[in-house]
């Protein structure tokens, strides 16, 4: 195999840069803001409903997460959420509805590989890392918090 010289590599990088479409960053940011804001506003409506049922705002966050996850999972099943994701970027990926989307989307895609190694395993393709790093980093943060500030 012939190895590319450094000059060739450089030339290739330049060529690559020239032909990579510049990402419309401003447009992406506006869309992420609008869609992310819209989803969390719906969340606020759900939260207010649970507060009106007598829960404290702090306790109401828990069932709100459940309802938002249900909605995200349903809209993914209906094929709607992935369409929103195409233009909303992190605006639809970062809310907890996007967490539900990250579970249902690969589960559907790999359904033909069976219900154990397809659906069961692939559900956690993204949700798994989120839970792993969430728990580990929270544990580290909590230990530091206890050491520095006490309980």
């Amino acid at each position: 195999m012939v190895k590319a010289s450094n000059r060739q590599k450089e030339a290739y990088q330049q060529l690559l840069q020239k032909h990579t479409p510049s990402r419309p960053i401003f447009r992406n940011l506006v869309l992420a803001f609008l869609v992310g804001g819209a989803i969390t506003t719906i969340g606020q409506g759900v939260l207010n409903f649970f507060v009106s049922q007598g829960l404290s705002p702090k306790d109401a966050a828990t069932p709100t997460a459940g309802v938002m996850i249900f909605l995200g999972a349903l809209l993914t099943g209906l094929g709607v959420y992935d369409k929103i994701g195409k233009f909303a970027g992190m605006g639809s990926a970062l809310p907890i509805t996007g967490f539900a989307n990250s579970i249902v989307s690969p589960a559907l895609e790999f359904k033909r590989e069976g219900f154990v190694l397809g659906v069961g395993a692939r559900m956690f393709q993204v949700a798994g890392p989120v839970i792993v790093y969430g728990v580990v980093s929270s544990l580290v943060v909590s230990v530091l918090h206890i050491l520095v500030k006490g309980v």
Partner: protein
Amino acid sequence: MVDFLLAFAVGGAICVAAQLVLDLTKLTPAHIMVLFVSLGAVVSGLGLYGPLVKIGGAGATVPLTGFGHALVQGMLEDVRQFGILGLFSGGLRATAVGITSAVVFGYLMAILFNPKG
């Protein structure tokens, strides 16, 4: 009405921060989701996420940073109640509804629907 506007502003702003990371680095959305859960945990540990929840309501709890916040606060709460073992019980207790909803509804939808296109 004000609470809706604040939820929109805070939730939108957190998503914009994530979008900036997506556009300016080579990280994938999955990496950024992991990053922001951990960021939420750190900000929560510094005592700054609680005030953000007071201002933004669901705007702060619905993005994944709120998941990190719930994990840390759950751990600290359980440590107060049960001692050091709380580090291993509080996180998942505080997020149990979310994780169980994700597993159950995720599985249900995967069974009910078939991939589109």
